[in-house]
């Protein structure tokens, strides 16, 4: 998983039925020093994260697990809101 910061939201006009009701958030992956660590991605949210919050997200098929039994076509999913992190 990676640390990230929620920077925005995405709303779709037309979508695959399996994405109905799935909240999509723009996430900037970050390093522990809060620097950007890669490009902004769109992640499916199942924990109720809001813009400005720090989260951690999973990639790949596991991103669809929180939505089981619906088979959501997601490859990135927010699985937790981060309260804090400590280095060292």
């Amino acid at each position, binding site marked *: *998983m*990676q*640390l990230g910061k929620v920077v925005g939201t995405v709303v779709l006009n037309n979508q695959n039925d399996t994405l109905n009701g799935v909240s999509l958030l723009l996430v900037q*992956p970050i*390093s*522990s020093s809060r620097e950007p*660590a*890669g490009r902004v991605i769109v992640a499916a949210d*199942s*924990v*109720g994260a809001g813009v400005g919050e720090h989260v*951690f997200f*999973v*990639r*790949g*098929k*596991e*991103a669809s*697990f*929180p939505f*089981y039994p619906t088979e959501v076509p997601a490859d990135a*999913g927010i*699985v*937790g*809101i*981060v*309260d*804090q*992190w*400590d*280095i*060292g």
Partner: protein
Amino acid sequence: MILARVVGTVVSTQKHRKLEGAKLLLVQPLTLEDTPRGGELLAVDGAGAGVGEKVLIVLEGRSASDAIGRKAAPVDAAIVGIVDTVDLPS
């Protein structure tokens, strides 16, 4: 699997139910020369690792879920061991 160093800890109260009680650690993947290789990752701990230790990380979902004894947990990285020695006969 890859080698990494545990560099920090993460606290998350609001998270997926399958991660309840799971220990979340920040790890830095390493080259064979022990220098950083790529960005940090957040991994669930399946081996009782502490900050500063060199560890073995599995980067596959099913394996990572098995490492913390849960079925179908939404994880893609887990610490599966603490490294004792790495030997590179030259």
